[in-house]
């Protein structure tokens, strides 16, 4: 019983970390620190926060509770969902805005695809490492 509670807690933490990292922290970093105009602002209304947190923690708990190989599917789903929402809220790394530049109205297009590619690449690598860890822990048992 203790083990199950521990795994559920671990899954909830994993889900909440994924939510904050991909849906809140990275878009906030782009919008507020780098001052790039995001195409779709994540408003964080209660319904949306509840939905995302529910799905993320649900997947986190399932990936933590269900043993490999079926549990690995939830791990992959968690990463894919987090990445697809991140890409959605950061406009796939391409930002467009009409602004006044030196007294002239201009249309600016800004591409920071390389930065997103690094985040996507690292997330994929991290997911593969998590899968490897789970497979080896099953084999050891």
């Amino acid at each position, binding site marked *: 019983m203790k083990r199950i509670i521990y795994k559920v807690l671990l899954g909830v933490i994993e889900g909440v970390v994924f939510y904050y990292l991909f849906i809140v922290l990275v878009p906030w970093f782009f919008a507020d620190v780098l001052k790039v105009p995001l195409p779709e602002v994540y408003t964080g209304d209660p319904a949306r926060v509840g939905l995302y947190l529910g799905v993320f923690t649900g997947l986190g708990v399932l990936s933590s509770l269900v043993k490999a190989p079926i549990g690995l599917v939830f791990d992959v789903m968690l990463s894919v969902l987090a990445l697809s929402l991140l890409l959605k809220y950061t406009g796939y790394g391409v930002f467009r805005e009409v602004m006044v*530049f*030196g007294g002239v109205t*201009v*249309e600016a297009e*800004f591409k*920071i695809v390389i*930065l997103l590619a690094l985040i996507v690449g690292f997330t994929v690598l991290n997911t593969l490492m998590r899968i490897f860890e789970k497979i080896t822990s099953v084999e050891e048992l």
Partner: protein
Amino acid sequence: MLLYAGLKFLVLVSFAVLLILLVAPLFVFLADFLENPECLLIRSVETKELNETHYEVDLEVSYCSTIEIKRLEMQIGETSIVLNNVQKGTRGISVVLSRGDVEQGLRKIRLSIAGLYELEIIPQR
């Protein structure tokens, strides 16, 4: 298992280093532009008429940021002018433009920030 833990640590450190290396030039460039909106200024200094159809235009490009622009492309009318490795300071260039190009003026500026990020600016008419 120790080897795997070392590999995992190496991946994490590589990610952090790469992230800093990628974000730092963008951060400095945007900070310079927010501080001085006229950080990149392109202006014509002198226009000489070569013949009935063409002009020789002396352009002055001044740039204020320490982050190098690897490629600066300016489209004036139908003519595209490319400057590589634009650094902080003022640089003068002389270009031959047709009468139509001069009448249309600057249509597009495209710059590659440190060779990593692309910015395209199209003046609205």
